[in-house]
């Protein structure tokens, strides 16, 4: 089953490689991985889309937690969340197709961010289903290139994924 997990990590050299190495070394699957700094510049957040049965997922979460530089691991399946992905796509836009591409982009509330005589470059954001539907419709027109960020996710409502008090102040063993 597909899971989106978020991993708060120390914003340090080599951390990405530790996380990626963990997945490859233990044969876990990474569908996409997106990483950037948070509001606190010492912390980065990784959003990883992965899959596995319950036993594998349990191992993935525990093994990530075990890495020294990992501060917190959250599986979005345990809560309501919203997720979005951004896609840049370069499509065929020769004379006859230009109108159709434009219309479709409008319907999906995308944007045309670059134009050439033969191509349009489109930007679209959305959840998995929307992006899938959009790309299916574009396929017959001719997708020349596709770049995706992979999904990022955030909890719905007031819930916030943050560092525990104990981790800020120091635990009993610290």
């Amino acid at each position, binding site marked *: 089953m597909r899971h989106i997990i978020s991993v708060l990590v*120390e914003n340090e050299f*080599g951390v990405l490689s530790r996380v990626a190495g963990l997945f490859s*070394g233990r044969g876990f699957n990474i569908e996409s991985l997106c990483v950037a700094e948070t509001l606190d510049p010492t912390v980065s957040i990784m959003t990883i889309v992965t899959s596995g049965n319950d*036993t594998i997922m*349990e191992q993935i979460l*525990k093994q990530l937690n075990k890495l020294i530089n990992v501060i917190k691991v959250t599986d979005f399946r345990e809560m309501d969340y919203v997720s979005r992905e951004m896609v840049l796509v370069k499509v065929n836009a020769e004379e006859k197709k230009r109108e159709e591409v434009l219309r479709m982009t409008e319907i999906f509330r995308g944007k045309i961010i670059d134009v050439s005589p033969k191509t349009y470059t489109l930007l679209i954001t959305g959840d998995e289903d929307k992006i899938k539907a959009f790309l299916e419709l574009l396929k017959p027109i001719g997708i020349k290139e596709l770049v995706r960020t992979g999904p990022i996710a955030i909890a719905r409502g007031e819930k916030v994924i943050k*560092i525990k008090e*104990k*981790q*800020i102040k120091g635990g009993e063993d610290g």
Partner: protein
Amino acid sequence: MKKTGSQIFVESLKMEGVDTIFCYPGGATLNITDTLGQSPEIKQIIVRHEQGAVHASDGYARATGRIGVCLVTSGPGATNTVTGIATAYMDSIPIVVFTCQVTTMLIGNDAFQEADIVGITRPCTKHNYLVKDVKDLARIIKEAFYIAKSGRPGPVLVDIPKDVSAQSCEFKYPEKVFIRSYQPTYVGHAGQIKRAVRQILISKRPILYTGGGIISSGASQELIKLAETLSIPVTNTLMGLGGFPGNHKQFLGMLGMHGTYVANMAITNSDLIIAIGARFDDRATGNTDEFAPYAKIIHVDIDPTSISKSIKVDIPIVGDSKNVIKKMLEFIEDEKESLKEYKEGIKDWLEQIDKWKREYPLTYTKNKKLKPQHVIERIYALTKGDAIISTEVGQNQMWTAQFYKFHKPRTILTSGGLGTMGYGFPAAIGAQAAFPDRLVIDIAGDGSIQMNIQELATAVQFNLPVKVVILNNGFLGMVRQWQELFYGRRYAWTHMNFAPDFVKLAQAYNAVGFRVEREEEVDNVLKEAFKNGRPTFIDVVIDPEEGVYPMVPAGAALRDMLLV
């Protein structure tokens, strides 16, 4: 006060109480070598190969319970440590490995003797560091020692570029470590422990299955108390040997692939397994689908990833073994009535266990040839179970685990998880460096000993009187045994057609060499070797086709043992 990186390094080691370091020099170590060379308070054992340095620090750590430390140079010096680090990682042994690195300006340049050792060892260290600024050095050393020993212990590597060891900065050794992302759980969840105790007290066929966690948390006395309070039989993993006295009447021996009949039968038929500090490794469980089909499982481990990894657990308890067992004993104390009933209820089980014990005790076929098991029985008898024993890997290791009854923790040094041939000899050297007056014996095979035989020079130079008993069968015996059983006795690659004369070889190194060919010579030679105060090789020519039994074939269930 300002100090150079290499002075900070040495001062930091002293602050950590390091008394011994295993090293090998090179271009990149020179600054540190020079400073350490003027610091006689830290004993410096110079090995002959960097792998030996890591295994020696690992042996030191296992034997003492303290952190083992080694230091090597960049490039090949660093890559030579990988097997040793992976060995310590698999067995959760606290060591700190210092590698030196080319100067920071040259990193990434394919410089002479450059290797990305931090990248290479990421998957086999608990954590590792590249020190990019001398100002970070003291803090990183403090963190490295803390991480190595706390939680589930393991190896930590610190890579120090040559310019960092030369630069200066203000030195103040940090008093405390705080790593917000690393806070191991020591205290088990009281509710879970209570549930576990209730489950124990209603069980009819319970068994304690304990591993290396008992040793690393120093929970041996607590384990004995728990086992005796509950009159419960105990089996150990290879890593757990010595955690429960091998001569205790409740001890069943080791379980698993070469475990005893009674241990494997007891696990298979139990209705409750109390696993403490063990990780259900494949060599212990056999086929996991058929592992302990009737048992509920309580699992105590400090590492949450070990729980429900290969075997689904009913009552998980994350915490330090010693803490959790103490808490269990407190709760049992409150349940005097149930304890009485429980003891009535397990009587049949204990009888059954005794029956299994009597039916198929550990044994071997005695014929005219010299048997390795006999040699180990004699070593046990002569040392009264009071020596530090290291092993290599293969048949020598399993015979030792079966026939030497380890009485106390930290008396067996063996590569359990990684199964590293060549581990035992340097590990024995490390233990001997920590305990100059104790008897340290490496039980080896003629194959394994040749993997780090160069360390004989170290033993002689530093006057470390390790005894190496080579069970010489002219084969890579364990692999040969599999060929015998599963590959139609075609002994490809495993027949060592040539081996050096180990007696002459020892003499060439100015060590002592003996050869034993007959049973009646065993005692005299061992006695002489044990008291000669010098590094000694004892080449014991054994029955070449002796096997290790019982044996659970790979992929089979524990109850399907091949017996003698």
